[in-house]
């Protein structure tokens, strides 16, 4: 041994330590990778040694390498070894390494459970601390479940150092194991008033984080936090509390009223910017949630805006940024208060810092009005010109478009101006937002009829100058605007003055260098242009001109026919043939224009983006059903359909269809498109419904093209938007003068004319009448459109699971799991009846006691239930009371901290709590009754509580008495251990045993606990349990999953390990036993690879599993029997050899009864079903037989129960 030690330390002398490694890496800058791989080899050698010091040194080095990006997951097991070293020095390193590299996927993590538990209970607080710190980084759902109880105990540790760590880590535990929240919450709440400020602030932190995610469950804590807020001087804590209130106020606006004053005081007084900022933010949140018309309302807003202005004016960039950020929040509800600071915000556009400029831009978006839109956009255009860097300039561009188009172009009074702005934006070099501009052009041209003429002229100019825009085509995103320009010119060609010229421009050879989708639009729209020119010429009788234009088309179109783009080619060749045909007709002097133009007759209306989604499915139409059964494909029928496909479709139960081949899919898609095209809801029926565009190019088809253009573009001859600003000002001035003269009457008329959809009437602004008679066509929706917009919540939100009501009393099933069954496995029992793996094998005495306790609790629970029911009603009122009075009666919510509280058993604090609750309730009642009676009431209360204590004592003694009656004989001979876990199924890999418990809180639910034991030497994972629901009994699945979905078992099983999972089932009737078929599927993973395995089982819900052991007193029992409402039935079993108490114990244990009274070989027993059926038994033992007489409020239930009992007893 000594030699080994010496050898170890000599080894260590030659090892590299961390410093050497770091130095080495720094000295090998050239061949770092090589050096490190050499080091890793050394480390691997070191890890093979027995000396823990060497190992720890190696792990330390690995941790460093991990930071440099090297994978060290292979050393996970060595890390655990170092973690379990007894010396703190090594343990510390081990935990550090684990916290850096362990995550939920780390297989070996479950091996740490016991080590961590040991460290948590170490007498050395630093061992505990290091374990807690480590755990906070790598806690998994399994670890959380297994260690929750240990950590909860640590929350009451004597050392504040441990308490605060334990409190903080609880948050991580809650996230991973939400079931722990309710049992742990009372103690957590207690910690809000811990004498140690560190622990207190930790508790505040945790509750604030919890409350931020699910505020409604924490409203009742508001008074307590209010007290903390007004008393605390710690800014860290204050910020958290204020944030919490920010989350609570939207749910309880009255809370906001109460908060405003202390918050404004803080804003005035604090010097800490972080606190100030938090206060301002919360005040804003509060004011948003408050309905207007509150006194001091505007004063508070003004205060906030003033403070924010100071922040924005500050030289500190950080404050400036945050000031703008907060300002944007105010903007949403109080735009006026912000708008007065327009100057300041426009100034920020000149800031050096891009992030500040972007913030300012965001603000501007909300600040525009009809009055200032042109001015603001003009400023922005200037910034666009001088902006350096494409990102920021692109941001400006999108912002300009956003600002102008917001709320259905609400703020635009002059669309000519807007079109000019858009055209000006096309001069931007290298923007990637060409498609955005194009979309706007299309949208405005389609929806604002009055602007079409102007738009068409502008677009024609763009097409004419296409060579400027389209140079350097492939990478130029701005050429997208040509798409819009071509379409607008074609579609609205009647407005075109120089159609010939435009057509000419579109037929230029240069066009063929444009991207395919744009060329396609060109081709399509030049026909529209051609048609309208043809018509024009024919009407004017200029036959030659008409033929000339046809000739031009025939000459130029072939360049598109040769296009490499399929779409272009197809359209061009088709159209070329058409025009050749037209030429033939023209030669024969047949007038063709009317027919050609008819190709494009009808008007396009915009369709709302959601229109398709909103088409209601007609009654009786099943979209999943086959219209025609597809022809059976003999070869593919044998093939099993791919599971993925079927999972998605959710149809496997109904049909088993062979896979559909690509062609078929394409065909159907085509058919669907056809159908949509013919769907009257899709495009509004035009005058000639048979002629419609079937393939209208939509904005969404425009792909985004990355571009970078080096030469700035100037499009000559374009109008400057600035002119409009001036014109507009003059116009408005004139208008105002006119209005002053003519007054209201006219105004009304005008407004009627200038009616716009969707625009909100904001007073004075509306006075500015638009320059054009603008009618924005609203987007079309299908008839009977479904109004609802499902707001989809993210089902993967980790915080959703923590949305738990914390005021309900704790149920038995909610107790934190205390590691029992794994340890109990070693206790092999001689009882042949019991399955080999048992959890709760305990000597009978313990069992009995446990049950006593349980029963005790059951009783309390009933009482408690009532109390809580009442309390729940009052909960709201309590808060009401607090919210309506000053000062707050915070004392009522103070948890009492007694010596019992620190006890580890969950049940005990619960007991204390319960008493408190009652007292508290009384107190609350007292408060509500008028204040004059307070004193008197106090006395009463004292008396009452004395009374209660007395009565409590009485209960206890009574119980003790019954206990002694039972125990008196039971103690004589020890009973064999029993387990309620029955075998569910087993195969060479896994064994499942299960137990069913009724749920006290829900009369139609039972919980099935299944123990999974891995019997193999392989790793079992991805276990999923599924049952076939019956009409009466259904497995409770997470929301949104179908009845065919299995429930994943929330853990994996390494070889030889067993673990328990619970599944909840809902039932309608409980009078009969039920059997459900089910399957467990899982993946077996070993060295050879992994296989998918299944295990079928039958879940047997006996009637006894619906019973809940409920104590009953003999007098109540007698009354029940006398009532005469009960049906009766009896059985007799012969050949009973076991003792009477043994027999009673069996009935108690397996059938959930309790003994009411026992005299010699006669006993009365009682139980209750989850649905409230009373079941009374009279058990008599004869020589070798037992007779049981039963009475129950339901005869079927009774006979089934007795049958089950008969079966149990006949085995004895």
């Amino acid at each position, binding site marked *: 041994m000594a030699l080994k030690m010496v050898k170890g*330390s000599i080894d260590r002398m030659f090892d590299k330590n*961390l410093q050497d490694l*770091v130095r080495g890496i720094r000295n090998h800058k050239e061949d770092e990778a090589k050096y490190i791989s050499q080091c890793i080899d050394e480390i691997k050698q070191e890890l093979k040694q027995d000396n823990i*010091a060497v190992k720890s040194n190696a792990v*330390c080095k690995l*941790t*460093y390498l991990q*930071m*440099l990006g090297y*994978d060290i997951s292979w050393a996970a097991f060595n890390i655990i070894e170092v973690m379990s070293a007894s*010396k*703190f*020095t090594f343990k*510390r*390193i081990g935990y*550090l390494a684990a916290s*850096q*590299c362990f*995550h939920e*996927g780390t297989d070996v993590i479950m091996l740490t459970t016991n080590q961590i538990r040991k460290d948590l209970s170490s007498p*050395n607080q*630093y061992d505990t*601390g*290091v374990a807690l*710190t480590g755990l*906070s*980084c790598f806690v998994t759902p399994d670890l959380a479940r297994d260690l929750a109880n240990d950590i909860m105990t640590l929350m009451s540790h004597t050392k504040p*150092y441990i308490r*605060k*760590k334990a409190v*903080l880590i609880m*948050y*991580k535990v809650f996230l991973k194991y939400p079931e722990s929240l309710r049992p742990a919450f009372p103690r957590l709440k207690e910690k809000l008033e811990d004498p140690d*400020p*560190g622990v207190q*602030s*930790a508790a505040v*932190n*945790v509750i604030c*984080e919890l409350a*931020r995610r699910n505020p409604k469950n924490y409203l009742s804590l508001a008074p307590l936090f209010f007290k903390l807020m007004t008393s605390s001087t*710690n800014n*860290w804590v204050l*910020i958290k509390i204020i944030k919490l209130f*920010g*989350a609570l106020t939207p749910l309880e606006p009255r809370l906001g009223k109460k908060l405003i004053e202390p918050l404004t005081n803080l804003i005035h007084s604090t010097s800490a*910017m*972080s606190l100030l*900022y*938090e206060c301002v933010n919360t005040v804003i949140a509060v004011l948003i949630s408050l309905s207007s018309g509150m006194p001091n309302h505007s004063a508070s807003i003004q205060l906030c805006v003033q403070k924010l202005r100071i922040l924005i004016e500050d030289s500190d*960039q*950080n404050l*400036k*940024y*945050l000031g703008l950020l907060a300002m944007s929040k105010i903007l949403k509800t109080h735009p006026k208060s912000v708008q007065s600071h327009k100057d300041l915000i426009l100034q920020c556009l000149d800031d*050096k*810092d*891009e*992030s*500040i400029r972007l913030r300012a831009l965001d603000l501007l978006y909300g600040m525009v009005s009809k009055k200032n839109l042109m001015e603001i956009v003009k400023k922005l255009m200037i910034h666009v010109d001088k902006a350096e860097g494409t990102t920021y300039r692109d941001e400006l561009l999108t912002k300009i478009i956003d600002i102008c188009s917001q709320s259905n172009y609400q703020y635009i009074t002059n669309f000519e101006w807007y079109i000019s702005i858009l055209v000006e934006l096309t001069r931007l070099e290298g923007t990637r937002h060409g498609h955005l501009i194009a979309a706007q052009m299309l949208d405005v041209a389609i929806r604002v009829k009055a602007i079409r003429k102007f738009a068409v002229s502008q677009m024609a100019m763009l097409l004419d100058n296409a060579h400027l825009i389209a140079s350097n085509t492939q990478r130029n995103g701005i050429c997208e605007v040509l798409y819009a320009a071509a379409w607008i010119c074609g579609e609205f060609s009647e407005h075109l003055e120089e159609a010939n010229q435009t057509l000419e421009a579109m037929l230029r050879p240069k066009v063929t260098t444009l991207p395919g989708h744009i060329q396609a639009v060109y081709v399509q729209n030049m026909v529209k242009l051609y048609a309208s020119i043809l018509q024009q010429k024919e009407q004017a009788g200029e036959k030659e001109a008409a033929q000339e234009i046809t000739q031009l088309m025939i000459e130029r179109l072939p360049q598109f026919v040769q296009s490499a783009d399929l779409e272009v080619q197809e359209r061009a060749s088709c159209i070329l043939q058409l025009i050749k045909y037209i030429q033939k007709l023209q030669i024969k002097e047949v007038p063709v224009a009317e027919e050609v133009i008819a190709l494009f007759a009808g008007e396009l209306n915009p369709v709302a983006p959601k229109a398709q989604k909103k088409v209601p499915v007609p009654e009786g139409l099943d979209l999943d059903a086959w219209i025609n059964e597809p022809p059976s494909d003999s070869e593919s029928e044998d093939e099993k359909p791919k599971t993925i496909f079927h999972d998605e479709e959710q149809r496997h139960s109904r049909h088993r269809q062979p896979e559909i081949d690509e062609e078929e899919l394409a065909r159907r898609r085509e058919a669907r498109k056809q159908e949509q095209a013919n769907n009257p809801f899709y495009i509004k029926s035009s005058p000639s419904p048979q002629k419609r565009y079937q393939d209208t190019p939509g904005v969404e088809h425009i792909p985004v093209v990355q571009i970078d253009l080096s030469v700035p573009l100037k499009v000559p001859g374009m109008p400057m938007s600035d002119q409009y600003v001036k014109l507009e000002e003059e116009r408005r001035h004139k208008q105002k003068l006119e209005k002053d003269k003519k007054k209201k009457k006219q105004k009304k008329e005008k407004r009627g004319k200038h009616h716009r959809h969707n625009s909100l009437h904001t007073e004075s602004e509306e006075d500015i009448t638009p320059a054009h008679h603008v009618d924005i066509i609203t987007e079309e929706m299908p008839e009977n459109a479904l109004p609802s917009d499902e707001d989809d919540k993210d089902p993967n939100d980790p915080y959703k699971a923590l949305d738990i009501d914390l005021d309900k009393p704790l149920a038995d099933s909610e107790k934190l799991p205390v590691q029992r069954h794994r340890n109990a496995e070693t206790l092999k029992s001689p009882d042949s009846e019991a399955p080999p793996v048992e959890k709760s094998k305990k000597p009978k005495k313990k069992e009995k006691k446990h049950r006593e306790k349980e029963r005790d609790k059951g009783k309390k629970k009933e009482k408690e239930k009532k109390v809580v029911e009442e309390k729940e009603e009052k909960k709201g009122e309590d808060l009401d009371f607090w919210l309506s009075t000053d000062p707050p009666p915070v004392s009522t919510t103070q948890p009492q901290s007694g010596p019992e509280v620190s006890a580890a058993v969950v049940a005990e604090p619960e007991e204390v709590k319960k008493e408190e609750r009652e007292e508290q309730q009384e107190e609350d009642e007292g408060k509500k009754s008028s204040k004059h009676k307070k004193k008197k009431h106090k006395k009463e209360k004292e008396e009452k509580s004395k009374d209660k204590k007395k009565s409590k004592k009485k209960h206890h003694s009574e119980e003790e008495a019954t206990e002694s009656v039972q125990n008196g004989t039971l103690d004589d001979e020890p009973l064999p251990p029993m387990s309620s876990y029955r075998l569910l199924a087993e195969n060479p890999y896994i064994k499942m045993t299960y137990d069913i418990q009724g749920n006290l809180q829900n009369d139609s639910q039972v919980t099935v606990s299944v123990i999974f034991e891995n019997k193999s030497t392989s790793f079992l994972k991805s276990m999923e349990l599924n049952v076939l629901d019956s009409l009466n009994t259904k497995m409770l699945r997470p929301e949104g999953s179908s009845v065919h979905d299995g429930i994943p078992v929330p853990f994996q099983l390494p070889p030889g390990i067993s673990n328990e999972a619970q599944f909840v089932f809902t039932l309608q009737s409980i009078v009969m036993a039920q059997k459900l078929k089910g399957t467990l599927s899982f993946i077996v993973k070993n060295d050879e690879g992994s296989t998918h395995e299944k295990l079928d089982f039958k879940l047997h819900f006996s009637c006894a599993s619906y019973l809940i052991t409920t104590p009953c007193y003999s007098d109540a029992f007698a009354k029940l029997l006398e009532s005469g409402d009960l049906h009766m039935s009896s059985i007799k079993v012969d050949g009973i050899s076991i003792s009477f108490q043994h027999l009673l114990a069996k009935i108690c244990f397996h059938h959930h009864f309790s003994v009411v009274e026992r005299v010699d070989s006669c006993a009365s027993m009682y139980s209750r079903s989850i649905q409230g059926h009373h079941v009374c038994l009279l058990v008599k033992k004869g020589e070798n037989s037992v007779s049981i007489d039963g009475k129950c409020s339901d005869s079927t239930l009774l006979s089934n129960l007795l049958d089950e009992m008969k079966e149990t007893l006949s085995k004895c």
Partner: protein
Amino acid sequence: MQFMLLFSRQGKLRLQKWYVPLSDKEKKKITRELVQTVLARKPKMCSFLEWRDLKIVYKRYASLYFCCAIEDQDNELITLEIIHRYVELLDKYFGSVCELDIIFNFEKAYFILDEFLLGGEVQETSKKNVLKAIEQADLLQEKLDSLL
């Protein structure tokens, strides 16, 4: 707080602490992305940036960047204070800390951070208490070491 990164001006990672479970691959990706973004920012720019759905708060001390990711509702200024407090703690512990201290004693830097923050929340607001805890743990370690 979701995570904290320390990296040098050259983009070398000096310390990383993750308070949310992520795969190594994801961590590396995030680190690379953030180091690039932060280093690309000009000195006069503010310390906050929006990144994915998180807010990044960073501050440069000498040659080291301290970079934290916080959630949308978190307070940026208090995060800056957390960073500052951590720097103060390192400074007190090492005695005018420099990048090399953190490189060579990176485990100590972690230990200090772990005493100050736990699970992404401030654990101890008192500088004195944090240092006391670290000193005592070190003392314990030395005692054990000397026994060897």
